């Protein structure tokens, strides 16, 4: 090929190195921004205050069930919530002791106006009702390997819109696809929830130069498929799906490709 056409994507290696160089410059700045001001402004920052309604609150040394309890806050005492990581909360007592408390105990604290605090806890209901979902799947795309990421937005518990990006890595050609799907879940409240999907998108293929001297190609694709969303735990779900693609090539025949994928996702 003589001059790069407007349709070919720039070389990923060039792209990535530029990206990495940017990151190398930005990261120290980001590290400083994220860390130092936090320390400096710690005194000025306002934290959410709650009072202990349980007989006592157990403070662990780390955000995990195995970390030992090193301090107990009595009923009626006020504590500040410094941060939350997954289902653990870093608290500071009036005396300045800091420790981690789990969500179960935090739900028994009260706000200054006496009402209970509503901490979001991921449950089976969120599996059905959560708006956003993101995941990673991998599998087989017409004999080639495929790695996909997707983001999904639920319009209601039954219908969601998804945006997919995939990289196809085959023996004879590589490529990528991007597509927009509509997903319908018939029984969204089931733990193993089947869904049907319809979508359209774009596929770009590059034949491997060592085997054949082919041209890069971009085609439109349409697909239909079905699969399962399986609630695992907390925010996690497993997902398996089958999709049948039609590639609208510029040649006389359209190509049909079958795809199988499994992976995991989480909702938030």
């Amino acid at each position, binding site marked *: 090929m003589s001059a790069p056409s407007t349709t070919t994507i720039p070389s990923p290696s060039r792209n*990535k190195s530029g990206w990495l160089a940017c990151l190398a410059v930005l990261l120290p700045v980001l590290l400083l921004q994220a860390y130092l001001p936090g320390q400096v402004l710690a005194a000025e920052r306002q934290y959410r205050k709650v009072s202990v309604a349980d007989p006592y609150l157990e403070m662990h040394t780390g955000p995990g069930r195995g970390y030992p309890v090193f301090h107990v806050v009595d009923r009626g005492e006020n504590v500040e919530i410094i941060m939350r990581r997954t289902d653990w909360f870093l608290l500071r007592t009036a005396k300045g002791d800091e420790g981690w408390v789990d969500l179960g105990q935090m739900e028994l604290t009260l706000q200054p106006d006496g009402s209970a605090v509503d901490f979001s806890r991921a449950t089976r209901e969120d599996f059905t009702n959560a708006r956003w979902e993101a995941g990673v799947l991998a599998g087989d795309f017409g004999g080639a390997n495929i790695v996909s990421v997707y983001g999904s937005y639920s319009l209601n518990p039954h219908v969601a819109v998804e945006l997919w990006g995939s990289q196809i890595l085959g023996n004879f050609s*590589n490529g990528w696809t991007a597509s927009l799907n509509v997903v319908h879940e018939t029984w969204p409240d089931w733990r193993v929830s089947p869904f049907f999907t319809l979508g359209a998108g774009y596929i770009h293929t590059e034949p491997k130069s060592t085997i054949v001297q082919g041209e890069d190609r971009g085609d439109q694709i349409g697909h239909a498929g079905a699969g399962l969303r399986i609630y695992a735990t907390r925010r996690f779900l497993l997902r398996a799906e089958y999709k049948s693609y039609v590639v609208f090539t510029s040649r006389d025949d359209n190509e049909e490709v079958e795809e199988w994928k499994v992976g995991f996702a989480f909702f938030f």
Partner: protein
Amino acid sequence: MESRIRVLFLVTAVSATIALSGCAATRDLFGLGPREAPPPGAEAPGQVIEPEVERRRIKEPAIDREDFELGAFAGIMSIEDFGSDVVYGARLAYHVTEGFFVEAAVGQSEAGETSFEVLSGGARLLDDRKLTYYNLSLGYNILPGEVFIGEGRAFNTNLYLIAGLGSTRFADDDRFTVNFGAGYRFLLTDTLALHLDFRDHLYDIDLLGEEKTVHNLEATLGITVFF
């Protein structure tokens, strides 16, 4: 003198206006308001004072969620048949539960020369010797713990197992890559962590004649920030 008289006149005029205006806020100030006592028995017996306490409305500061971890790493990567070289990259992780996290990483290294290239003197197998990869992985904090330095310092740590999929661009081709390994997260503070990470990247390559699965071992040291 004239100005002082003018001020005096103005003050008198303003106070007279306020006093005569019947303004609710000021009429009692001058004792001019109507002194109508509420008729006895108008209020319900037993309720002497009507409670007019408004419920406190407090705008609570939001709780800072710190489930994301962003950082950079650098180390050594051994590219099978092509020697070892410096690798560096970036990673972004999202902690879903106290155990599980998902991680996306990109990295870059440079391939050295194969022993054939070294021995033959001039022959070069590759022009572009850059290796770049990305991967999407799932990690599990299998051994959370604490380490103690001296008498008064304790740091939280995590030993995690991690595995995932991605792609490696090397020798002018993208290859499906599986990675797995283990890492050690050392939390300097609650938001800043050091990582020591060992990873094996596997992919199939036929560059040297027959197709084979290669293992690219990588050891890196990194720093991450939770946000």
